[in-house]
């Protein structure tokens, strides 16, 4: 028998009120934790995948779309740019590293990316099994692709035209899996990597034409052709101003900065997040009010109990703590339940998500969640402080002599 037991017994006695209050707190905290986790995970994904990429050059169109398609592999590409122009940019003195991308095909929804060895350096990829692709039609697949599509080294498959679906299959050429990448924790886990020549080959009418690509060096691969985009790393931060302007002056290319476009994307979805956040705060406020009202009302009846406990020798401060503890217990249980709900809901959302590129999971924690629990405790304490103050006003003698 202790203060904790007395408080909890009293909460159990008023089951319905207690449950209502717990649910209110749980919903508020739940929504906040979903927002917190989702924003954190999306931010992480965006940041991780864009690491080391200062600029993306692609066909004119929406810069956001260009970023989404060539870094995050979510949206459709804006179009193609002449490989010759891209080659010129790639060898510009301001550029430290340029990674060409040729997109357009997929296998079961996993994008097939034609690129060269600079891609592996950009993402510091390493091989788990087998080798990197070397010749046309050889591919190295990401770890998620390997585990979910059950492709093994030596297997071959047909790519399909487009970025999703199996509608238009390139039956004339089959890819062969040469290697599987180590899990990187970024977008490359979901990609199928090959050389640019393979992508060209897929889209040519005459198979024999591509024969002359094979023996050529990688840099030559991109001559006379088109590629989808070029990921660029600067030599010095100074280029941030000059280089994009230079690219944008050309007739058919544009430069998009991942940092700027991510910020823009966040400001677009930010309105929704803000609204939800305020909604959650509103629910929490109602929870606090509800706890306050139920404790305050209960004080009328509990006055006898509290006077009795005073009579039995309890000090005022002990009883003050007793009432405070009830409010805190409700919000603590609510906050923990809310975190559980938040994680479970996010895991459920993640499992229904179509795009494997930005999958959400409820199985990770973020340190800010501890603040949610603290907020819960604080709200409980605030809501119960006024009812608890009543303790100091109760006149034991008159309360106990009067009838209930």
């Amino acid at each position, binding site marked *: *028998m*202790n203060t904790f*037991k*007395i408080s909890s*017994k*009293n909460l*159990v*006695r008023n089951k319905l009120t207690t449950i209502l209050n717990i649910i209110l707190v749980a919903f508020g905290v739940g929504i906040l934790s979903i927002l917190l986790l989702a924003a954190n995970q999306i931010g992480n994904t965006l940041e991780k995948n864009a690491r080391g990429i200062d600029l993306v050059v692609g066909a004119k169109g929406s810069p956001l779309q260009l970023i989404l398609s060539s870094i995050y592999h979510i949206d459709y590409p804006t179009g193609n740019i002449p490989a010759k122009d891209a080659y010129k940019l790639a060898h510009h003195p301001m550029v430290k590293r340029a990674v060409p991308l040729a997109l357009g095909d997929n296998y079961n929804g996993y994008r097939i990316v034609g690129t060269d060895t600079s891609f592996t350096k950009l993402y510091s990829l390493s091989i788990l099994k087998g080798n990197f692709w070397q010749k046309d039609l050889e591919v190295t697949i990401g770890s998620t692709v390997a585990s979910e599509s059950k492709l093994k080294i030596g297997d071959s498959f047909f790519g399909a035209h487009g970025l999703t679906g199996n509608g238009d299959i390139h039956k004339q050429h089959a890819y062969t899996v040469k290697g599987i990448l180590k899990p990187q924790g970024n977008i490359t886990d979901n990609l199928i990597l090959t050389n640019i020549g393979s992508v060209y080959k897929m889209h040519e009418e005459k198979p024999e034409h591509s024969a002359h690509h094979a023996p050529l060096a990688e840099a030559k691969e991109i001559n006379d052709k088109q590629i989808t985009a070029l990921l660029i790393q600067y030599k010095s931060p100074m280029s941030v101003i000059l280089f994009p302007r230079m690219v944008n002056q050309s007739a058919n290319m544009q430069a998009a900065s991942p940092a700027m476009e991510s910020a823009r994307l966040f400001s677009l979805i930010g309105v929704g997040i803000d609204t939800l956040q305020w909604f959650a705060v509103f629910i929490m406020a109602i929870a606090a009010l509800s706890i306050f009202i139920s404790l305050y009302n209960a004080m009328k009846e509990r006055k*006898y*109990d509290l*006077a*009795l*406990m*005073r*009579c*039995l*020798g*309890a*000090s*005022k*401060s*002990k009883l003050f703590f007793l009432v405070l503890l009830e409010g805190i217990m409700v919000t603590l249980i609510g906050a923990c339940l809310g975190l559980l709900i938040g994680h479970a809901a996010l895991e459920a959302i993640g499992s229904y998500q179509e795009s494997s590129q930005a999958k959400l999971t409820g199985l990770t924690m973020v340190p800010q969640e501890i603040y949610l629990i603290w907020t819960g405790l604080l709200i409980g304490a605030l809501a119960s402080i006024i009812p608890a103050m009543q303790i100091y006003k109760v006149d*034991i*003698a008159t309360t*106990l*002599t009067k*009838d*209930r």
Partner: protein
Amino acid sequence: MIKISSLAHVYDKGRRLKFPNWEIADMEQWLLLGASGCGKSTLLNIISGLLKPTEGEVLINGTDLYTLPARKLDRFRGRHVGIIFQRPHLIRSLDVLDNLELAAVMAGLPVDHERNLSLLAGLGIAGLAKNYPDELSQGQLQRISVARALVNKPDLLIADEPTSSLDDENANQVIRMLTTQTKDNGAALIIATHDQRVREHIAKTYLL
């Protein structure tokens, strides 16, 4: 030993009450008699440390109650004075045994499970240990409040009209138990009442 001397209380409305001096030796049993409105409850509240008198002092075993700081007074009351009210007040969310334990916990004393059970047995209500107050009758509840008042082995037991809401049979039982149990536990007893049924059991009277 309990001693009150030159005690007077002034009510909010200005009415002034003087109480005659009173000495109660260990294990003595007293009736506090008087017409209603003459200050019986006020005196009991003063003796039990719930109401600070305007003048005078209350000594329980040499401790002057109203020189103690509030916190110590609460604790002293919990440990040395057992109070039984006109209406039995029990905590509804706790069962009978927990209600008894509460008395020890609130007074900051260790819980003596065996003693609590034997107290209930002595009052003939051992079978109710796990019941909740809402399930019990007034007579049963009043017996439980007697048990609770005795939990901490108090020096003084104070009962304010303990029988007024009970029928003859229950009233007799409660009085008998009050007198025998206080004796067995070595406590002094004060019963404030105007109930004739109580008078037969106790000889010493203090008249207001």
